[in-house]
């Protein structure tokens, strides 16, 4: 098997995640889909790391995880406070930015 398959898998997961972001309304699920996309990227990085024979790809994946952790913390906090204010976790309900 060619390790390139990992990349195809990563692409597939990324696309599924992205589509999920677009069609789900529940903010938490949207967030999960974002996580899925991030993980897909990580997989690709790890695969690249193996292909190139150095650890830089893994480092980037590691940083991605850290950033994702930070992002989750803040994002979930936002969701919670939005929920508190609007009693809804639907992203469509937060549509005050239209003209």
């Amino acid at each position, binding site marked *: 098997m060619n390790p390139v398959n990992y990349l195809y898998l990563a692409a597939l997961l990324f696309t*599924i995640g992205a*589509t999920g972001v677009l069609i789900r309304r529940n903010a938490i699920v949207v967030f999960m889909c974002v996580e899925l996309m991030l993980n897909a990227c990580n*997989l690709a990085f790890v695969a690249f790391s193996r292909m190139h024979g150095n650890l830089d790809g893994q480092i980037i994946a590691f940083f991605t995880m850290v950033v994702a952790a930070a992002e989750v913390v803040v994002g979930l906090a936002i969701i919670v406070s939005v929920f508190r204010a609007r009693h809804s976790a639907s992203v469509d309900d937060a549509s005050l930015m239209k003209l």
Partner: protein
Amino acid sequence: MTAQLAAYSTSTGEAFQFWVLGTVAVIGALCTVFMKKAVHSALCLAGTMIILAVFYLANGAYFLGIVQIVVYTGAIMMLFLFVVMLVGVTAADSLKETIKGQRWLALLCGLGFGILLIAGIGNASLTEFNGLGQANANGNVEGLAALIFTKYVFAFELTGALLITAAVGAMVLTHRERTERAKTQRELAEQRVREGKHVPPLPAPGVYARHNAVDIAGLLPDGTPSDLTVSKTLRDRGQIRDVSTEALQDLKALEQRAEDRLERSNSGGANSGGSNSGKGSK
């Protein structure tokens, strides 16, 4: 397996593992997207992540694989579940689209994007790969550490700052300072009297019913449920479980049984005859 060969392909075991677990991962991802309930989505995602952790391990990223399981699946996903609980575990998300054309556009874009991405990967000349044998010679963790604390030390420090910021940010966002003194019991009582809407205290859930769960409304004497008995949060979420119909059925059945028994003992006791006639007239 020679090093030469290792450059182009992997072991059969890994291939088998890839195809099996890969399929499961894709299914998990799809489930994450399409499951109605957030909890289910979260569980499916956790599954996918664990599979990814296995893949990391298979790709020689031992440290990341473990971190993936411990930090990601263990901590982050639990955080997700925690929030899901906070926001409403049973709130099923309707998958019905409300924005015109959004779903089709999304699918179209997703499809196009996927095809392009895959075409891109297919186009790239990625036939050769080196394997991590050399890089991991001193141990994967040591190798990573050496890089992080030399080449990427600046970025690493920055992520530290980012994490602290995020932690503070989360606290700021969720924490609410009380700006006014809480009202005392007495004041609340006075307020109730002043407004005159609902002078006595609100009924407790399940007072007139057979259930005492917090999300089940108490029944009024005529058998209809009273929303007032349920906490406001649950009411707002629409998470009140309505048991009035079955309660009424239960009541009816009870009465039926009582009737039957009373019929039998009608001659026997006058004590329950009064109640029976009362019921009978109803």
